[in-house]
């Protein structure tokens, strides 16, 4: 158990986006969050590394524990939390800097100054993200020159470089073509040995292919959480069944 949410409610102003979400994420497993648009799955994901702090007028109730500590406790520091819980976004968002400097951004902020250590870290991260062979000769080039799929893998490498324990992925392949999507899925499969991965996806085949656990959300509520196979073959809730069989959503 690496992350636990306990009776989490979330509000955008007066709008209630999540209701009483209680959920355990297991260490070094891939957990998928699925559900129709606006069901709150992305909102929950962004709560896990306190990215929703950046939006004005939001409010969280309940507890979210990371390794037993409430990350919404008054003395919890969102910056430290985000260093340990990385995030990959829907649209690839590399900085308009060189490939090298994209990777070194977080480690440098975390105080790593040694050139050799940094170079080793860049190589290791890019290798783990299976991008090294494609970019090793153009590390000083702008990240903006890469293709969309490469940019997304760079963003994954960038997140890996700060040595997180958890990686949150918010529909990471929705802006990519099928070939790039397959590469990212393969990558997720290799990463799960070392990292806990939580992925939001609107693509149910993808959830079925890559995840071990799946949570189904509807109208801000967690309807069902179980082993992926069970969710996709024999769900308990009628709503889940309707959704995965394509009756709505």
């Amino acid at each position, binding site marked *: 158990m690496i992350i636990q949410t306990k009776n989490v409610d979330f509000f955008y102003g007066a709008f209630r986006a999540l209701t009483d979400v209680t959920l355990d994420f297991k260490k070094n497993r891939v957990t998928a969050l699925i559900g129709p648009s606006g069901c709150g799955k992305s909102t929950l994901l962004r709560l896990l590394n306190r990215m929703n702090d950046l939006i004005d007028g939001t409010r969280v109730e309940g507890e979210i524990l990371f390794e037993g500590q409430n990350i919404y406790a008054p003395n919890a*520091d969102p*910056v*430290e939390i985000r*260093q*340990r819980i990385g995030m990959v976004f829907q649209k690839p968002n590399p900085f308009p800097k060189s490939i090298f400097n994209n990777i070194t951004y977080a480690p440098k*902020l*975390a*105080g790593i100054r040694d050139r050799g250590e940094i170079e080793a870290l860049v190589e290791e991260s890019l290798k783990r993200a299976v991008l090294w062979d494609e970019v090793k000769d153009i590390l000083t080039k702008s990240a903006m020159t890469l293709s969309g799929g490469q940019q997304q893998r760079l963003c994954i490498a960038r997140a890996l470089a*700060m*040595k997180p*324990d958890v990686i949150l992925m918010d529909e990471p392949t929705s802006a990519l073509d099928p070939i790039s999507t397959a590469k990212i899925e393969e990558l997720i499969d290799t990463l799960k040995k070392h990292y806990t991965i939580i992925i939001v996806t609107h693509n149910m085949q993808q959830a079925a292919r890559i995840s071990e656990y799946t949570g189904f959300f509807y109208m801000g509520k967690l309807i069902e959480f179980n082993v992926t196979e069970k969710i996709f073959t024999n769900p308990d809730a009628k709503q889940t069944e309707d959704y995965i069989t394509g009756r709505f959503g």
Partner: protein
Amino acid sequence: MNGQPTHSLMKWRYIKQGVFFGVVRFAALIITLALLGIIVFLLAHGWRAITWDFLTLSPMDSMTKGGIMPAIVGTFYLTVGAIIVALPLGVVSAIYLTEYAKQGLFIRIIRVGVNCLAGVPSVVFGLFGLGFFVVFLKFGSSILAGALTLGFLILPTIIGAAEEALKAVPQTFREASLALGVSKWRTISRIVLPSALPGILTGAILGVGRAAGETAPIMFTAAAFFTSVLPRSVFDEVMALPYHIYVLATAGTHIEQTRPLQYGTALVLIALVLGVDLVAIVLRSMVRRKKRW
């Protein structure tokens, strides 16, 4: 898992942030104080000078006594003249740039031209007005020459504001009208312009404020040192508030003696210009709040 020194490093990072935020807030505070300081100072020294006589009489006794009525009237004429020149031309230019023009050399030239025109120093506009309107077209130093010079000075401001207002009109409005078989010009005049009108008006008001406060462009083209009579045609010279301040404060033998008049005139000018600007700002925020698209 960033090793042990994380905690002291984090502290250091937050200290840096705190210092930076402090500096930033300080800068914002100083700017605010600068504006307030100038206004408060002029108010404190000038309010005593503002009387009914001051606003309605002509200067007397070689401008050591009396009021500033001719300067108020002159500034009014010049400003109205400038907006008559700049508003139609500016709006039409903006319509062309946003609605008709396609990417290309011609439009690029116009854009660069407008940008460069916006950057021409006001004193150079004054020289141009002198060389072109006063001397070449033989308007003489007159309301006409001054208003034209000021009008061209604020033209880029008007174009910019009108363009912004036009761009803010949703594309779907245009498409809806065009899809009904309505011609482009009618779409613009019936749909686009009315929607953009408040924004254009804001720009025009800001232009008025700018024109009313300018000195250098009218020094050689319109402004008179002193006239006791009000202008009777557009070919007459006029007094103007900004120039009057300059004259009282720098020229003549009674600089110290006329200080109250200088403060009073500055106060009237600043109240006029900032009042006009404030109207524009409030109008704009009202428009933004009301907007439902």
